[in-house]
């Protein structure tokens, strides 16, 4: 059952179109992620759902009820803002109690629930302090606490990890997963970071220019991106996208690439000779050494980027850039400026129309 449904939502600011027919559904208790670069419309989407932005067109339904145009107060949702947006003039305890007080809850119940949430999020020691005196991670946890203290049916999260350092981000990702499991509330999480989307979400909607371009579970999104846009967005390091052209030869169709031809039998009859295509190959699928069943090529090593356990190699083959990932102990034997023999197999490749960016096959 769909808990939240957006249908053709349009939001314009003057001449700029922020949301251009945004539609998607989120199931009850689902962890749903909106993935897109900045200014793709993620924040506006969340604000529209919360009722903070009036819409020009479209409708929003929540918990079986049309909420388009309904006041912000009383929608039964909570939001975690990018800036945390804690009340600076109130203590942590007062911050956590604020939503409950607005609901008119009795004083001892407020106290009990605040203590409960403070313990769940391990901020009990900060209760009497002002938000300004807290560390970034503590502020974040208080913001989460304030959002969940009155047990909303839907939690909106607007890039909640953007303002934290790398180590904290990692911890908080686990924390969000844990909270989702323990509280069982529906979560809608907006982020520009594909890693956050892949690690936490049950389903991801990729956003571009105010509309959804693909919705899928993280694994499918990674394995079968619908378009070059999604392909470039999901996975790190980014998928290699190489321009090519379809050619029919004696042995069947091939794809002519700057550094050689790849057997295109896999894509069957869908390809016409002369078609301009973009071939995608993930850096992890580029192997060291030659392979008779694959496209093998020689490439120069331009740069090495050690990440600790693995190293990203920045290669160039006949002018075309190509990235690959190697285990550190293998990569350490290669030198910048040297040459390597690499290969990749047709079954690992993704093919897209050059003009539309749409996936083939």
């Amino acid at each position, binding site marked *: 059952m769909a808990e939240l449904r957006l249908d053709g939502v349009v939001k314009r600011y003057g001449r700029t179109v922020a949301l251009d027919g945004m539609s998607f559904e989120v199931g009850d208790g689902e962890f749903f992620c909106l993935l897109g670069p900045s200014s793709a419309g993620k924040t506006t989407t969340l*604000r529209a759902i*919360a009722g*903070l932005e009036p819409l020009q067109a479209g409708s929003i339904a929540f918990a079986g009820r049309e909420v388009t145009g309904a006041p*912000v*107060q*009383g*929608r039964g*949702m*909570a*939001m975690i*803002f*990018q*800036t*945390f*947006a*804690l*009340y*600076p*003039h109130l203590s942590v305890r007062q911050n956590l109690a*604020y*939503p409950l007080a*607005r*609901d008119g809850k009795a004083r001892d119940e407020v106290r009990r629930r605040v203590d409960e949430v403070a313990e769940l999020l391990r901020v009990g020691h900060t209760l009497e302090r*002002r*938000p*300004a*005196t807290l*560390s*970034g991670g503590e*502020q974040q946890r208080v913001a989460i606490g*304030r959002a969940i203290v009155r047990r909303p049916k839907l939690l909106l999260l607007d890039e909640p990890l953007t*303002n934290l350092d790398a180590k904290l981000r990692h911890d908080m990702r686990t924390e969000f997963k844990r909270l989702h499991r323990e509280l069982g509330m529906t979560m809608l999480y907006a982020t520009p970071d594909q890693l956050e989307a892949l690690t936490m979400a049950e389903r991801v909607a990729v956003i571009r220019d105010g509309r959804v371009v693909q919705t899928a579970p993280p694994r499918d999104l990674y394995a079968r991106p619908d378009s070059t846009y999604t392909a470039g967005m999901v996975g790190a390091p980014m998928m290699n996208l190489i321009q090519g052209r379809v050619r029919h030869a004696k042995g069947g169709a091939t794809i002519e690439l700057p550094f050689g031809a790849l057997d295109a039998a896999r894509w069957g009859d869908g390809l016409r000779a002369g078609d301009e295509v973009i071939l995608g190959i993930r850096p992890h699928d580029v192997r060291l050494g030659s392979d008779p069943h694959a496209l093998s090529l020689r490439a120069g090593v331009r740069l090495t980027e050690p990440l600790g356990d693995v190293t990203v190699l920045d290669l160039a083959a006949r002018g075309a850039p190509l990235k690959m990932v190697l285990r550190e102990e293998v990569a350490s034997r290669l030198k910048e400026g040297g040459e390597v023999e690499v290969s990749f197999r047709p079954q690992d490749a993704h093919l897209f129309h050059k003009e539309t960016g749409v996936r083939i096959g």
Partner: protein
Amino acid sequence: MATVTTPTPVRSPTKAKMRLPRRRQEIGKAGWGWTAFVGLVSMVYFFPVLWIILTAFKSRTDAFAIPPKLFFTPTLDNFVSVFYRASISGGSQQTDFPLYFFNSIFIAGLSVLIAIVLGTLAAYAFSRFPLKGTDTYMFIILTTRMMPPIVAIIPIFLMFRLTGLSGTYFGIILLYTAFNIPFSVWLVKSFFDELNPEVEDAARMDGATEGRVFFGVCLPQVLAGLAATFVFGLILTWNEFLFALLLTGVETRTVPVAMARTLGGEVGVDYGLLAAIVTLFLIPIFFVTFLLQNQLLRGITFGTVKR
């Protein structure tokens, strides 16, 4: 000349350092040399005030002594003569200064208060609910403060005569309120603009009505700013002379006007008396500034928001 130690190069303070008590951290950073230097400059600024206060406690001969006396026998005669003057019959007669002090406090206090209330409401509206051309309106509001007030004195004088506002509390308070509103709107708007609007959105989502958002969330965050605006407005209005001279009557006269009237006469300027009035006149402003000091320095909204 005081020797000045070279300040240590500015480092970005670590988080732990930021939590040190303000005062200790700052002296630690600037060093005693700079602290002493700033103290010296402050003394130069404070000197005229100090001079006036000292003169208020001097006898007439001490006040005119050359070279000036730094050590003298203090006397309260000047303060007494602010409130009582010798009458022809040999007894003493009460002056009207208690009334003038009341007038100054009442007129300045009330007009600044009204201006702050109206200015804050207007500033919030301008900051949060912008109209088409908000900048133009803000500019127009400012233009009223661009010309020297004396330019408008004749029309204002005539209007006050015509409407019977001359010499009334209502009239002068109305005028001072009108003077204070533009700058209240501008100052307070800048404080509202500094706030993080997501905090207000958070309050709305937490179930706060628009009234609560304003009174419970926005207003407490700009209290320090309101205090500063109040003090500035109060000082401006407190010392205003020109309009008070022309538009107040016997009953509504303020201290600056009354002070001017003690000048002249057959004995020349009685500097001791004048200094005593000024000293008394300083007390309410000192008092208010001191009371609001905490608000002025607290700056509760700084550093709570990561941008």
